């Protein structure tokens, strides 16, 4: 009877302690205010990307020479560029490009890094040694240099930009995941799985990989900001997304340089958008790390 009472009280306490989603967000905002700002930016970008066709007041690719170089105002909130294209509309659609490239490159790069990093730790020995040296070679090149080289080989296009950004991410994620997976490998349940005759793939994917999710998620979120910045850099250098596709880096190229003095809005707004996006993802990524990293959580 007493035991039943205790259970009931405990359930009631648990029920009392349960919070709705808004309360949880409020608590998160209180504990991680910068992370919350970052999260808000990320959400805003995602909404812009998904609903671009509803939010955009104009067709982002429509040349309207009657409205070329119009300053920000009632008709064009952020002004127009030298082709008479609405800058706000191009920024909104540009979020779609940035997120598509950012998420695709980050997810694929981090996922490949996760699998390869765990594999390297799991097999160890000569395989690990050789694999890590290969990773060293890739990591010896700065991200932008590596991406530039890859795009130069494959040619500029959206999918090649994703490939170019993905490849440098793989060793970065693999290295971090491996260090965590080395510890996991020593835990008895991995030996138990091996003793039960499970295959390597099953042990790696079902038993080890889920236990290194924390560093994986941290890397993933930090990669998104880097990917957006790299995509913008490549587009600015003319090696990324091409006209007339709206992309923030592309908006900073050509006309923006030419008109920076007399029509500064052409350069300012895409620049602000890139900064905000990278800042937002970095803040969000830092907060994810703070929440998921046990060492930081206990401090």
């Amino acid at each position: 009877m007493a035991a039943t009472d205790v259970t009931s009280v405990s359930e009631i306490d648990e029920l009392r302690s349960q919070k709705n989603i808004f309360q949880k967000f409020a608590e998160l905002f209180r504990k991680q205010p910068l992370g919350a700002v970052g999260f808000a930016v990320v959400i805003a970008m995602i909404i812009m990307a998904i609903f671009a066709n509803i939010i955009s007041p104009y067709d982002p690719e429509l040349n309207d020479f009657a409205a070329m170089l119009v300053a920000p105002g009632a008709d064009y909130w952020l002004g127009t560029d030298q082709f008479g294209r609405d800058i706000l509309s191009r920024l909104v659609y540009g979020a779609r490009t940035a997120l598509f490239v950012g998420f695709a490159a980050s997810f694929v790069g981090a996922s490949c890094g996760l699998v390869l990093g765990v594999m390297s730790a799991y097999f160890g020995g000569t395989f690990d040694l050789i694999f890590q040296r290969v990773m060293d070679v890739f990591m010896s090149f700065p991200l932008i240099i590596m991406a530039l080289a890859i795009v130069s080989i494959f040619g500029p296009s959206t999918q090649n930009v994703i490939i170019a950004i993905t490849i440098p991410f793989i060793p970065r994620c693999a290295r971090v995941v491996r260090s965590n997976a080395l510890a996991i490998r020593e835990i008895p349940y991995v030996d138990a799985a091996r003793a039960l005759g499970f295959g390597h793939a099953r042990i790696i994917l079902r038993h080890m990989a889920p236990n290194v999710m924390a560093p994986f998620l941290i890397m993933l979120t930090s990669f998104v900001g880097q990917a957006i910045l790299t995509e913008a850099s490549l587009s600015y250098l003319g090696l990324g997304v091409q006209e007339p596709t709206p992309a923030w880096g592309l908006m900073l190229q050509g006309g923006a340089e030419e008109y920076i003095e007399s029509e500064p809005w052409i350069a300012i707004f895409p620049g602000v958008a890139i900064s905000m996006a990278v800042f937002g993802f970095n803040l969000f990524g830092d907060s994810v790390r703070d929440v998921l990293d046990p060492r930081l959580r206990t401090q």
Partner: protein
Amino acid sequence: MKPSTKLAIALGAGAAFALGAVATASAAPKRGGMLNIVVGSKIPSYDGHRETTFGMIHPIRPFYSLLIRVNPDNPQSTSDFTCDLCESFTKSSDGKTYTFKIRENVKFHDGTPLTSQDIKATMHKLIFPPKGIASSRKAFYGMVESVEATGKYEVTFKLKYATGGFIPALATPFNFVYSKKDLDTHGYKWHMKNINGTGAFTFVQHQPGAFVEGKRYANYHLKGEDGKNKPYLDGYKAISAPKMAIRLQAIRGDRAQIEFRAFPPKARDDLKKALGDKITVQESDWNCVMGFSSNQKLKKFQDVRTRQALSMGLDRWGGSKYLSKIAIVKTVGGTVFPNHKLAAKKEELMQLRGYSTDLAASQAEAKKLLAAAGMSGASVELLNRAVDQPYKVVGTWMLGQWKKLGLKTTQIVLPTGPWYAKFRKKKDQETMIDFNCQGVVNPLIDASKWLSNDIASNNYANYQDRQLDKWYDQMNRTGDEAEAYSIMRKYEKRILHEKAHYAVSFWWYKINPYRSYVKGWNIAPSHYLNQSLDQVWLDK
């Protein structure tokens, strides 16, 4: 015929014009000073016979002389040529023999005296190059049968047929005269990496990616207005600056005085606004035509209706009005340099598909043609060059125009090297921004671009049209101006209208703002012309 006389070349006698060109040599020239030029491209090699880019000719041309050249004081004329290394020349009554008297006492920078043998050796390299030696304008000289040194200071050209295209072709600014001794001793590739000319300046140094420096050649063969040897300048530096913003700021900050290619209208306005009278601007139509070609190797573009529709979708007249505010293009034209005697008049142009002022009707017709060809809503990929002015600006405009026809448009933009490789080697582009940039205005030769692709190496649409080849030959062989005009109209109509092998969008427009104390330079209708710098001086 006297030296530096205006050559009465039947078809080259186009009307001289100077759009905004200003007289720059009213005061007595002063001597001394260094001219800093900014150049927006790189030097592939020093060999003028091989190269085709202003990236080479702007820094290297001052080291060399030509046999004849466009009159530097009147470069807007399409018929005013003067002797450079020749003293005079004569033409036979049948127009098939030209004899040039060569200047005596001209020396190469290494001290070797110039003789007719040097001219002959140079012309042989240009016109009859051995296998494996590139001569980019060899096709210009199809009319030449032989070049002989008929005296120590006399050279004779024998032609297969009389043509007004010969003298303008000979005045091509890439025809650097080389020393026979160098060609014999070092071979035909030596000039790619070495310089030894008779030009107004001698080579000092080349820091790759940074600058080329030249200093005054004291024994230069041409005299200045003060009776002393030209050039007036002590030297020059051609500074490499691929970014337009850098070139613009260099002139603004007086670290460079001039750029010889062109700036867009906005840059001109900004410079003028900032510096007022310290900046002088010269403007001119430009012997560069921009348009697009569709790759007829691909099934998609073998249907003439598709090609016609793409051309008809372009609002040329409206585009000219607006693009001329943001890009170095302006004049709507056909295949001949605007204002030349062989060029189509506006009424004639308006009869061609895509040149109507009734845009709505044109676009409606274009949509019908696309539907008939099964191309409604199809995707079209445009290959473009990673150069803002005017390539990317015109390309972006073009894509916008095609989108209005309901086409799904994409663009591939490649740096110059891979861009050339794609349509010259792979030949797998769909449509491409296509151009025809020439030096001396010489429509009879310039029109060779549209010959069949087994004749014209710069036919990137990959078609063969023997009717065009036949008309081109007739045009070049006739001595009758009216007949040439008539054939040119048929030639042009077939290219732009009937077969839509090519679509001209606009002719380029050259805008050169520069420091007002730079004197003696006159704008030409080409960024290749008038770069010898011997007549340039600084009013400081």
